[in-house]
């Protein structure tokens, strides 16, 4: 170690926090697990498209998830169907894995103590961890849209897309709408990510935090399905999960998008504060 003439005083801050964020992104995408999760999500629209292609001599209309019946006419609906199908289970599952792992995973590896003595301030670590979990939400929904669009275009005819309002949009505008839809669903999952981050500060067993997060996603949806608890529904983080229909109308309406974003922000604030309250003074003994 070369000796430093300025050792007596505290060294100057040389970087913004972005270095850690970039490092965190690299760590996330260096894991095979992350790619397995994204591959599983990509498989959803692919399987749907293949299943429909193999049986599409008949008519697929009648029941099933949104947009399913329109796929044979237009391959671009594969992406939307894949997204809708993934919302209740697959997406919360993958988000639960990533968000539940944030702090508990580091604690489990023992790397948490080395990050904290590096030193990474605890608040900064929570913010960066949440930012990366949020990034994963967008990566996840984007993966479904891209895989769905690709397989849809490969197996079915592609053309102007009819909207729920009856209007028809071109392929270019469809791309924009599909990205908006992906963003809507990703934003829907931010509340769940915040819940997962909080749970992750409670334990050093990442699997426990992941499972608890996923269970809460299921609980929220079950409560949302009980009419007796209607007073509670607007407060559930899953309340707007299927509210993306507004984005498929002409003119486009961002009302639900805004309500959803506000609700998710509320969850981020509350569970972010809880995570901070728990983590800021926690003894790191792992």
């Amino acid at each position, binding site marked *: *170690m070369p000796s430093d003439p300025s050792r007596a005083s505290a060294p100057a801050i040389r970087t913004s926090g972005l270095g850690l964020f970039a490092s965190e992104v690299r760590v996330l995408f260096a894991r095979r697990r992350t790619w397995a999760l994204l591959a599983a999500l990509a498989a959803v629209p692919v399987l749907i498209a293949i299943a429909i292609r193999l049986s599409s001599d008949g008519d697929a209309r009648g029941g099933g998830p949104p947009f399913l019946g329109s796929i044979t006419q237009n391959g671009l609906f594969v992406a939307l169907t894949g997204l809708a199908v993934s919302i209740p289970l697959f997406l919360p599952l993958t988000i639960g894995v990533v968000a539940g792992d944030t702090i508990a995973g580091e604690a489990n*590896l*023992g*790397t948490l103590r080395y990050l904290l*003595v590096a030193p990474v301030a605890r608040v900064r670590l929570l913010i960066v961890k949440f930012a990366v979990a949020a990034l994963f939400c967008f990566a996840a929904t984007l993966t479904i849209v891209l895989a769905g669009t690709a397989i849809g275009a490969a197996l079915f005819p592609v053309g102007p897309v009819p909207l729920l309002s009856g209007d028809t949009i071109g392929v270019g505008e469809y791309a924009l709408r599909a990205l908006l839809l992906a963003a809507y669903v990703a934003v829907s999952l931010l509340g769940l990510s915040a819940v997962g981050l909080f749970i992750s500060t409670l334990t050093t067993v990442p699997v426990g935090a992941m499972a608890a997060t996923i269970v809460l996603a299921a609980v929220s949806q079950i409560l949302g399905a009980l009419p007796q608890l209607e007073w509670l529904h607007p407060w559930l983080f899953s309340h707007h999960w299927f509210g993306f229909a507004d984005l498929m109308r002409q003119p486009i309406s961002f009302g639900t998008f805004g309500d959803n974003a506000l609700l998710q922000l509320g969850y981020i604030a509350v569970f972010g504060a809880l995570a901070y309250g728990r983590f800021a*003074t926690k003894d790191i003994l792992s």
Partner: protein
Amino acid sequence: MPAPAASAHADEPKAAAGTLAIETRGLTKSFGHATVVRDLSLAVPRGSVFGFLGPNGSGKTTTIRMLLGLASPSGGDIRMLDAPMPDAGRSVLPRVGALVEGPAFYPFLSGRANLLRFDSGDRHADPATRSRRVDAALDRVGLTAAAGKKAHAYSLGMKQRLGIANALLTPRDLLILDEPSNGLDPQGTREVRGLIRSFADEGTTVFVSSHLLAEVEQMCTHIAVMSAGNLVTQGTLDELRASGSMRVRVHTPDPGEARAVLSRLGLSPDADERPDAAVAVARPAAASATAVAYPGAASAAVASASHRDTVVTADLPATAPPPEDISRALVTAGVRVRGFSVDGASLEERFVALTGEGFDVAQ
């Protein structure tokens, strides 16, 4: 726990600010009803290689966690590099390299990528020189060839080296190394000792914890001994050795007379007369326990007379007459001497005497 030895608390922090790299006062940590560290007052001088010694479970790692701000003290305060911890962690910790309770890495990243990752957490580390600094640290611990290997493929010894490399990413004023040679083969242990000496030569203060006395003895200038959460002694290695002093051993069939002579010379013979070879002598259990805890402080009372050959031992303080005078006095007094020897008490005997138990005792 027996009362602390004479030197404990005699070296309470009294040096002026700036001369100590680490100073704790009354540092205490409790988990529920269990007090893991009790009223710890450490004084680690700048530039020292400070051995933090104690059996497993004596509170060393918990103390280190508190020093580094990973765990908050239940009581007392800490100053590290002249700033209060954990409050000043953001300015102090960049100048401190640490290995805490074994190395830990992302198994799916290469050794080099792991170091890059930890370095990116330090906002005081210059990203422009990151790659070069990481390579220099890897080179210093001899891991250049394995830098590209995934960490999960590393042996325990390689992980240990990588952990030390992680502590060397930027120039440090203080290195806190918890059991640095754990898992290393003898050659690796020697290398680590060499590394620690070279850090000290560069002016870095090294605080190294260990349960292996021999290791500490070979590289440290200062030492603190923990036992069951209490500091039992601290000071320079020479002070600890001196407090253990030399011991005189007299093999004789006349233990009573030998004791009397030794006492007359100002020595304090130990209470227990050890039977020579395999001759068993029944001793009161209480006397035996005392003798283990205080080898030098026992009374000179003559135990039940045994007419067999026994060994009378006594500490030989600096004020004692030279050994040749003692042997002459014994012979002159008519004590039949079969053997006479003067041994330096090994530090290990001192350590066992201070901690009152063997190594590797899980508590």
